[in-house]
Structures are given as structure tokens and as C-alpha cells.
């Protein structure tokens, strides 16, 4: 027969695993959603040396907004 203490340990370990598992799942989903909504490849600003030079040293350039 399994001692009472061992049963309690197993149940608590399973509960902790379930809690952390859910939290990690929610976090992963939220991170993926945030990434694709606001920071995905389509949102990324492509940078080139000319574009940076335009922003920093072009006297006519007042804003780098495309």
C-alpha cells in the first residue's frame, strides 16, 4: 500500500505541473499573438546604410517616416 505522504506528494506535484503548464500555455499564446499583431516580419522596418545615412546626415531629411 502506498503511504499517505507519498500520495499527497504525487497529487501536489501533479497540481503544480498542471498550474505551471496552464500558465506557460497562456503565456506562449499571448506572446505569439503580440508578436504577430505588432512585431511580425511585415511590421519590421527594413534598414539599409543609405536609409540610416539619410536619417543622420541628409540635411534635407526631417523625418525618416516612409
Amino acid at each position, binding site marked *: 500500500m502506498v503511504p499517505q505522504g507519498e500520495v499527497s506528494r504525487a497529487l501536489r506535484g501533479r497540481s503544480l505541473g498542471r498550474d505551471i503548464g496552464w500558465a506557460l500555455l497562456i503565456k506562449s499564446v499571448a506572446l505569439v499573438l503580440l508578436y504577430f499583431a*505588432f512585431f511580425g516580419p511585415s511590421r519590421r*522596418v527594413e534598414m539599409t546604410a543609405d536609409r540610416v545615412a539619410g536619417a543622420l*546626415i541628409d*540635411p534635407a531629411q526631417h523625418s525618416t517616416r516612409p
Partner: protein
Amino acid sequence: MAELDVVELSRLQFALTALYHFLFVPLTLGLSVLLAVMESVYVMTGRAIWREMTKFWGTLFGINFAMGVATGITMEFQFGTNWAYYSHYVGDIFGAPLAIEGLMAFFLEATFIGLFFFGWNRLSRLGHLVVTWLVAIGSNLSALWILIANAWMQNPVGATFNPATMRMEVSSFFDVLFNPVAQAKFVHTVSAGYVTGAVFVLSIGAFYLLRGRHREIARRSITVAASFGLASALSVVVLGDESGYTAGLNQKMKIAAIEAMWETETPPAGFTLFGFPDRATETTRFEIHVPWVLGLIATRSIDEPVEGIKDLVATAERRIRNGLTGYKDLERLRAERAQAVPPEMQEPIHDLGYALLLKRWRPDIGNATDEQVHQAALSTVPDVSVLFWSFRFMVGLGFYFILLFALAFYLASRRELERRWFLRLALCSLPLPWIAAELGWIVAEYGRQPWIIDGVLPTFLGASSEPIGDIWFSLIGFVLFYSTLAVIDVYLLVKYIGLGPKQPAAPASNRLAPATGDD
């Protein structure tokens, strides 16, 4: 150049994500080492109660790690969108430590955390202890690489500007790695993490003693936290002083702002203990001035001056004018498609960042007026009041932790831990290390303004021109995301603190030695 409101919002978003992220980090750093210490005692003594302690604090460590892991990745999201100019300008240097952190330290940490939790009955005692130490080492190495990247923003060494690629490129990875600011920052930050871990264990232990629960484990935990915390709190202050000294060498304006030091004093400079800095009049009202102290701390000498804000503004003005020469040189180098900066142009191009501060006032900075140059020089002064007070609260808390742990150590050595006034004090101290750590980051990062890379690139030139609505929505998304995580983290921690350490297994199993309180 992005619109200023876009820059401010991008800064706010980055600051919030960094501050939220750092709620999880210090506890991971501190608890990982405390777990290793507790398990070392278990392996050395063979007393099962130390194994139960390690497993209990390990549960809380696991919850915090699970909630905190990957919360820093949102800052990397922002590099490519909100900070595209910054990413291009410094990516060659900044990318390497971040990649090494992910590939080496984080995987080391994450792999061994799995073994820590699932290896208790599968590994030998010594094998499991090695795993626990590797978890601690991995956590600390993660911090090292991130702080190397951050320190480069404070003190950009080991890099040269390439006019063809319009970016800073690594000239000496050794210099980047052994940047004195990185070394000082690393030891100061991880010590602050150890204090956080120790205060956490002390406070939760005090909570159990106040409730009369799990007394054997609580007493031993408080004793470990008191000794480890005392050593760590002393280290934080000593290493923080070293961090201040390196800042005094490389970021004189930050030090002058922290001290609200408007004028250069005859050495050794005095320290302003208290006062109300007034930027408009460039004075500090109701000042309590302690002679000599700042000079000794900041220069380690009695004859070296600590430059005041007004003199540093004058220096910035000279560097702006020098940088304007560099600006014209750069235009020529770009036109000639040069691949490197010739030696005679190195010095003015070194001050290019200062000239770029003028972009805030006019696009054709070559035609800047004297008044605009002066305005740009004044913009090198960060918000003095915020730095002055953040620093003093942080340092005050640092000294409080020394007293708290010294008291805990004294009471533990006299076996008088169960004094209720002390236990209440310890419990109420729980949030303080997080407040101190966040204030420390405010001093470090807000104090670097107006630079994103000190002396090299102004913050407003690092930001991209994302639509302002997008930044608002993503900012709200981050606040919701992190607030939810914080709530879940606190809920789970409270739940498992409430459950407490596991009850001893049946005596017949012979796994738990009698707890006598003398171990």
C-alpha cells in the same frame, strides 16, 4: 528621425517591459544560489530536512522561473520595429552577447532546471547537487551576457564606426567582454538578486513562524537567508560603489546629475545627503552637504575634482562643435564611398553623436546657430530630481538590508528568531528589494539620457517611425500581458506558500531525520 511623441512612447514601452521583466529576474538569480546552498548542506550532512527545504524553495523558484522566462523576449521584439535605427547602428556589437545569452546561458539554465525538478529520484545526491549548481551558474551567466550588452550602451568600447555600412562594428570583442562597466554592473546586479532571494526566504520564513507553521524549516531557512543575505547586502553596497566609480570615469554627467552637483567644487567634493534640486535655477534647495565624501567615493582621491553639471555642459558644447566637423567629414566619406575612417578624421567623428543632438532642433545641423548648439548641450543633462531621489532611495534601502540581515543573523545566532516584532518587520520587508532593483535600473537607464548609446547615438535618433496608434495598442497589449503574468505569478506563489513544505514522509521510510533545531 521619428516624431518626438513616437520616441517618447517607444521609450515608455521599452521601459515598462524592462521594469516588468526585472520583477522576475532578481528572484531567479537569488533563489537559484540559495537552493544550491541548501542542497549543499543536505549533501554534506545527509539530513533529509535540507532536502525538503530545497524542494520547497525549488517549487517557488520554478513558479517564478516559469512566469519570468521569455518575458525579456518582448524587448527584442521591439528592436526590429520601434528601434530599427538603433538596431542597425549597433546590431553588430549588441547582437553577439544577446545571441550567446540565448544559445549558451539560457539553454544551460533551462535544461538543468528540468533535471532539477525531475531528477530527484533519478540522479545520485551528488549528481543532483551538480545540476542545482549548474542552474544557478546558468542563471548568473544569462545575467552576465545581458549586462555586457547593456554596459556597452553605457560605455561603448571595442567598436569603431564604419561610414560605408553606417554602423558601429566590433574592433575588439575582448574589450566588449571585459568592459569595466560590464564587470561592475554584473557583480552589483547579481548581488542585488541574491539580496532579493534572501529577503524572499526571510520574509516567507517569518510568515510561517508568525503562523506557527513549518517551524523547523522556517528557522533553518531564515538562518540561511540571514547569513547569505548579510554577505550579499554588504556586497551590493561595496560593488555598487565600484559601479558608481566606473560611471564616474565614463558617464560624468550621470554622476553629476545623481549628486545634483551644479558646480565643480574644489576637491575633494562634498556629498549632498538631502536637498531639492531645482533645474530652473541650477541650485539645490535645503541642501545637507557632507564635505569630502563624494570626492573620495567618486575619484578614490582627495585631489581629483568631480565635474559639475555646468562645466560638463560647456564640455558638451565643445564636443558638439567638434562633432560638426566630424559630420562634414562623414558627408565627404559617404560621397567617396570610403570603407573606413582615416586617422585624421577619427577624433572629430568620435564626437559625431554630440553633433547629432542638434537634429532635434534642425535637420541641416551644419547651419546650427550658437543658441541651438547651447540648447543641444543643455539637453545632455538628464532629469536631475528623478536621479537624485531614485539613487537616494535605492542606497537607503541597501543600507536597510544590511541592518535587517545583521539583525536576523544576530537573532539566529542567539536562537531568538521568534520575536514577533522582528518577524513582522521581516515580512513587511518583502517588496523592498524589488523596489530597490527597479530604482537602480531607473538610475542606470534614465541617467544615460539623452543617449541610447552614451556619446554615440541620441535616443531620439535610434527610434523608428512606427505609427503612433500601433505603439499605443502594443503598449496596452504589453501592460495587459505582464499584469496578467504578475497576477498569475503572485497567485501561484501565494497558493504554494499557503500549502507550505511537504509534510514529512512516514518515519518508516527513514527519509526524514528528526528535526532538532540544532542542525
